[in-house]
């Protein structure tokens, strides 16, 4: 029995090399991690700001200074009509318009309320709220400095897990999970259907090989190839992107092995149920790219999702592995955390269910 499997594994390896897929299978994960690691920046900085100062007094100028010399605003004081300025936001040349009313200084000294006009481009939902937060922070800081009112409440912010709030720290652990769902699944999705299209599946039908042996023969080479990727990604993350590694290596090795089995299993399942390679590719893209990006908790936390989206996130293995990844790199509770142990068991259940389905749906006849 082992001999049959070894033969099949050898054959698969040869095909990988011959069809130049092996090369792609390493280039692909590396490019994705580099693109995300170097290119993705979700910090809100350099907000293009226009200030219309209708007062032009020392106080109003002092106020506008709050929007200069910070990395958050790229400010320009301009002398145009409100409508023209609004038009600039409309044509996407600026995100923020602040209008300082005339009599700003006079009214402030008298203590009469002053109305500050703030116009924000609201197209990107999160961005507009952040901008409005920044503006009011600048406003408080101005008021505090003008009224010689000392701030009495002081914060002691303690940023847990990602102390300096680096986007890279927040995104990379999730990206490893994203890569591990995309690449192995796409590979294995074509393994069986390819044989169906080429007709070489009849070799299997006619051989004495059992369904289990066939599946193992497909699984082993993929597993070896992609497990190397998992380890390479770990090295890149720690050495190049300088993420901390606070959890246990054993947890990383174990959970990644389980997740890799799931990813390959999903691919094989797609491969077994589809009839053509194109359908296999699209089905894989559908079950990996979309839930991987959208329902994984990388972009938006799962507990803020509602209804079907929340449900989708839970029936998909991604969120469990993503949580474990965050623990390994940033939190470091490891096996001592009940949640992490629970998530590991859930991954085991996924593996069992997926391979049971694979075994059930694979046919050894026409």
């Amino acid at each position: 029995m082992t001999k049959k499997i070894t033969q099949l594994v050898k054959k698969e390896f040869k095909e990988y090399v011959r069809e130049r897929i092996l090369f792609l299978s390493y280039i692909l994960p590396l490019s994705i991690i580099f693109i995300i690691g170097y290119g993705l920046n979700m910090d809100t900085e350099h907000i293009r700001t226009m200030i219309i100062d209708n007062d032009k007094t020392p106080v109003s100028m002092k106020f506008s200074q709050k929007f200069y010399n910070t990395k958050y605003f790229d400010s320009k004081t301009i002398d145009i009509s409100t409508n023209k300025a609004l038009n600039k936001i409309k044509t996407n040349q600026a995100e923020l318009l602040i209008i300082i009313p005339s009599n700003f200084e006079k009214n402030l000294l008298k203590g009469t309320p002053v109305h500050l006009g703030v116009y924000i481009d609201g197209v990107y939902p999160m961005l507009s709220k952040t901008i409005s937060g920044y503006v009011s922070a600048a406003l408080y800081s101005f008021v505090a400095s003008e009224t010689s009112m000392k701030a009495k409440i002081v914060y002691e912010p303690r940023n847990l897990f990602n102390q300096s709030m680096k986007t890279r720290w927040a995104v990379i652990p999730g990206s490893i999970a994203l890569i591990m769902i995309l690449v192995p699944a796409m590979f294995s999705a074509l393994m069986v259907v390819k044989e169906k299209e080429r007709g070489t599946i009849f070799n299997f039908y006619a051989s004495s090989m059992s369904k289990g042996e066939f599946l193992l023969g497909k699984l082993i080479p993929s597993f070896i190839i992609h497990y190397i990727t998992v380890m390479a990604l770990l090295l890149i993350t720690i050495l190049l992107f300088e993420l901390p590694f606070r959890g246990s290596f054993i947890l990383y090795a174990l959970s990644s092995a389980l997740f890799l089995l799931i990813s390959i299993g999903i691919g094989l399942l797609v491969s077994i149920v589809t009839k053509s390679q194109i359908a296999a590719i699209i089905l894989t893209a559908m079950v990996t790219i979309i839930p991987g990006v959208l329902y994984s908790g990388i972009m938006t936390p799962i507990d803020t999702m509602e209804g079907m989206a929340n449900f989708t996130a839970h029936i998909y293995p991604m969120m469990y592995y993503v949580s474990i990844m965050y623990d390994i790199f940033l939190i470091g509770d490891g096996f001592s955390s009940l949640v992490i142990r629970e998530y590991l068991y859930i991954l085991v259940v996924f593996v069992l269910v997926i391979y049971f389905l694979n075994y059930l749906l694979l046919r050894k006849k026409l």
Partner: protein
Amino acid sequence: MMGKFSIILQKEWLELFRSRGMLFFVFYLFIINIYIAGKGINIDARGVNVGILDEKGNSFYVNKIISSLHEPEFENIIIYTSRNKIYDDIKKKKIMVGLIFPRTFDIDIANKKETKIQLLLDTTVATLSYYTYTHLVNIVNNFQTQQTVNIPIKMETHKLFNQNARSQTFMTLKELMSAITLLSIILSAAVFVKEKEQDTWDLMLLVPVNSYMMIFAKLLSQVVVIMIGFLLSLGIVLFGVFDLPMEGSFSALILLTFLYTIAACGIGLFIASTAKNITQVGLMAILVIIPLNFLSGGITPIDAKSEIVQWFSYLSPLRYYIEGVLNLVFRGTPTIYLWEQFLGIFVIAIVLFIYGVKKIGKLF
């Protein structure tokens, strides 16, 4: 001549309609997924759960601060009695922020003495935690200025363009653009490579049709399918369910989408001309789609990204498309101002086509 062209078109459509699975995928991407994502996913800062530890218990000022943490930004306010429990629940993702008020909070404020609030923040979710931090600080600032002086400046904030249900409509639009990208690239690449895989390539060569015409007909067949999907999705899901606003010109939106679909099919053509087999098509498609999605301004605007990324993004047709669509749908920018976006997509499409047609054409 037109007869031959339409026969190729019909052949491709027939193949698509025979494959029920494929039709379902197209339907899923254009209708079901957009509906689910729009209904359920908040890319907005809302629904954050906050944990409060009031060391004194039932403090007057703490209650006052709590009363200003309201929806939609904050959902559940959970009162804790121990520091460790807060810490634990942040780890379990039950809450995202913990605020710890000292025992002397009330007395200190009454005596105008300095006092400290501890703020525990889960920062594994970068953008949301950053926003929540700014928001909380502003709430406390607001609270303390009210305690001392009447803050003399009132901010009159106007959020322009589509304030209500913005998160939902934004999400649906973003998913629609993703669906177009994904399908255009994969379908158009597959339409060529499948001929190689199914050994019908030689048959195709024997067909008495000019190779350029063959390429255009095959691509056009996919563009038409995607445009129909786009229109259905727009009509049924985006306008029908989510009440998408349409501030700019509708026909400009259609034209821009048509151009973009052609450009994205150009990427597919590029992949098809480079890939040797379908496995390579799949992998190269991922290689293109992931960076396109992350780096084209679908989540945060392009202008907020690093300069290198901005520079690279000029090569991405999705960048122009997203900008153009957001301008048309939400901002209501007059079409004349969108010439950059139209031109960008157009140039990229032309370049991709020249390359792809030359390379695939050689194989004929």
